[in-house]
């Protein structure tokens, strides 16, 4: 296996890519390596680490913006934000528990994989907070798109395209993110003894109120509704939601237990067992229970929900065959898409990790890949192309 190349500068990253392009050597990109299990298994001989390209370039709390080099450990950023009472509102998930990895997640890896968490249901995803990027394309050109101000990207929004492209279109070197104030306090209402269908009904009722529910997840047999804000807001909203569901048993979660609860939901700790393949389904919330039921009937899967039912996690025994066909057929009947997040290398080689796309969309994606990375050197094959 080749050694990791770890450039210390954007120019160095450009040089590394240019050399790889000239030699036709595929590069596996890495930040902290904590999410290396995501994507189609690939055999790129080159290794490019962004970990040497780190640091916060600019942080203006009054402008709600932070500009960071891509190899910066996420913790460096969240600590800096925390000191000013601010946060990344999309609550990025930490994949270390799922993959049993040990490194430090980086900002670049988070953006490349468009990693969000429970607050996505209210606040939006990582891509919604991405204001601009600098990146190196597959020919070694250093490019920029967007900027560091809120509102729209001038011209075509290539930043969105880079977010969630898993490094297949460019090597992120710098990202600008919008940040938000941290809530003063938070509280969760827990409803035990539910099945997925009942949980989704509860979520739909709660999410159409004005009480700004910022987390709506279902784990085990318990549905959780999170409320955040100033003390007076949290008290008011918790009371109103309790009124709305007054015929049910409700328990409250607060303080340290509350933080722990949502960190666990965010990181899908309940499916940390490496003996299962883990699928992530993005569906219309009211379809979640039926889709989860279809999959469970065939594959004996365990299920949890997030985003008010819009995100379904299915843990399926590694021994179960035809997972991709069965999961995707269940999703196809109603709409949405399914991604294999954790699976054996064999499974990630043999089955489509990402949802196969309609021909026209696949053709556009393929042409974009060829445009950004004409020599096919950036994480080649990781997204199925």
């Amino acid at each position, binding site marked *: 296996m080749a050694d990791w190349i770890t450039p210390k500068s954007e120019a160095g990253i450009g040089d590394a890519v240019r050399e790889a392009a000239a030699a036709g050597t595929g590069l596996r990109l890495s930040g902290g390596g904590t999410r290396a299990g995501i994507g189609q298994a690939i055999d790129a001989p080159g290794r490019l680490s962004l970990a040497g390209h780190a640091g916060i370039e600019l942080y*203006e709390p*009054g*402008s709600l913006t932070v500009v960071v080099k891509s190899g910066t450990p996420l913790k460096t950023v969240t600590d800096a934000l925390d000191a000013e*009472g601010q946060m990344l509102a999309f609550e990025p998930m930490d994949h270390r528990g799922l993959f049993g990895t040990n490194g430090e997640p980086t900002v670049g890896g988070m953006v490349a994989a*468009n990693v969000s968490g429970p607050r996505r249901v209210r606040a*939006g*995803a990582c*891509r*919604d907070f991405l204001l601009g990027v600098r990146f190196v394309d597959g020919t070694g*050109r250093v*490019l*920029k*798109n*967007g*900027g*560091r*101000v*809120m*509102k*729209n*990207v*001038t*011209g*075509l*929004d*290539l930043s*969105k*395209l880079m977010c*969630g*492209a898993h490094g297949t*279109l460019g090597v992120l070197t710098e990202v600008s993110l919008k940040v938000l*104030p941290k809530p003063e306090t938070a509280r969760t209402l827990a409803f035990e003894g539910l099945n997925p269908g009942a949980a989704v009904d509860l979520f*739909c009722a709660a*999410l*159409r*109120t*004005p009480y700004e529910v910022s987390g709506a997840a279902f784990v085990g047999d318990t549905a959780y509704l999170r409320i955040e*804000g*100033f003390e*007076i807001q949290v008290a*008011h909203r918790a009371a109103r939601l309790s009124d709305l569901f007054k015929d049910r048993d409700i328990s409250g979660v607060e303080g340290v237990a509350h933080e722990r609860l949502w960190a666990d939901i965010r990181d899908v700790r309940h499916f940390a067992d490496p003996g299962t393949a883990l699928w992530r389904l*993005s569906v*219309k*919330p*009211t379809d979640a229970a039926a889709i989860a039921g279809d999959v469970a009937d065939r594959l004996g899967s365990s299920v949890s929900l997030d*985003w008010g039912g819009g995100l379904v996690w299915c843990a399926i025994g590694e021994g179960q065959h035809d997972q991709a066909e069965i999961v995707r057929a269940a999703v196809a009947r109603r*709409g*949405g*898409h399914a991604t294999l997040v954790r699976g054996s290398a064999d499974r990630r080689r043999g089955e489509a990790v990402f*949802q196969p*796309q*309609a021909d*026209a*969309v*696949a053709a*556009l*994606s393929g042409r*974009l890949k060829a*445009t950004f990375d004409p020599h096919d050197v950036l994480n080649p094959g990781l*997204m199925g192309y």
Partner: protein
Amino acid sequence: MSTIAMPPPDAGILARKADIVAALAEAIGAGDVISEEVETRAYECDALTAYRCPPLAVALPRNTQGVAAVMRVCHELGVPVVPRGAGTSLSGGSLPTADCVLLGTSRLRDVLEIDYDNRFIRLQTGVTNLSVSETVDGDGFFYAPDPSSQLACAIAGNIAMNSGGAHCLKYGVTTNNLLGVRMVLSTGEIVELGGPQMDSGGLDLLGLICGSEGQLAIVTEATLRILPKPEGARPVMIGYDDAEVAGQCVADIIKSGVLPVAIEYMDRPCIEVVENFAKAGYPMCEALLIVEVEGSQAEIADQLAKITAIAEALDPVELKVSASATESALIWKGRKSAFGAMGQINDYMCLDGTVPVSALPFTLKRIGELSAEHGLKVANVFHAGDGNMHPLILFDANRPGDLEKAEVLGADILRTCVEVGGCLTGEHGVGIEKRDLMVDQYAPEDLEMQMQVKDVFDPHWLLNPAKVFPLQASTGRRDIAA
């Protein structure tokens, strides 16, 4: 004579007008095609009225298939297509060329699906922005992006320009509220992206399409996120005699952890005109902030108490919390009528650029200096919370040379936005207005990358020609296409 050039029309296309019109009529029916010169004139401009050019023909299809049929005809015959929503673009985003088919969305007016459990609405994109909120209002929902032109502007144009509005500090702009689209490529091929689910698989093509100013595809249907209406909302007016202090107040509010739904800013020239027009009870001062918060009565009182404490520490000349729905409406009436009020006393050019919030005071000072240098008055009314500026340059359209002078001043102001770390646009897009300024924000290779992405979607460069990219930079591509 104005200063933004458009390419000369293709004489070959002009000569084939009869054939092109006949092919369009066959594709979607003669009733949905306009070709008489007295009628095409109605489409000669958008809200950037200094630039006018009637299109070769106008097509007004009634559904996605109709749009695809028009695109197939134009693709086959090599005719440029200029998409148009409601024609309210301030940057000339739907300015026709003489050799184009103008493709209007005005007959795409159906709401297709409303789903409150999953919190989305699916509709044809000719639906106006305000009517989306009106459609779901009775059930306690609203659509968040609220551009000033919301009574008239169409969702198609909102998606093309990634429109915002006063309330996007809290709710984001169009791209943050768009879940899916049905769109037609320049070949006529129909493509679906996203849907009611919260994220789309694969590359974020939806994010790329939103804000692409009609360069990549024509969006015919959209799935939009709708939100439950807040329990209530109330504004506070805060006046300062120093722009810098007002800027400080904005930053302090944001830093405090309160996230107002809107922070609007007006400077003295604007306040004077607006107050005269709307009698909103605005104080005469250098800088007026309108800060609005949402929630229950108690929540509102709590947040307003935090905000007024911050504001008072900076010694305002006026601080008035709205005490009733009537007062709130009056405060907003002034702000919302700013453009109209300005238009009654003057011709004006409305700019749109964004700067870091921290750079607001400096930018305002610099605008004042540039205004003096160029001898044209500038009034400022804008969304301060996210740094989205709308300088209004006042000029006399009947005085020869004044428009050109205003355009030069406008370009200087937008360059200033870029210099302080901001960008050329906020929510109006690039269009033709800022096309040639793109070189001030982007290096040639950055623009080349964007143009390569257009190549992927529109290899013959038929969609919305001579917009977004500097005319010089796109010349080679458009010539090859022709």
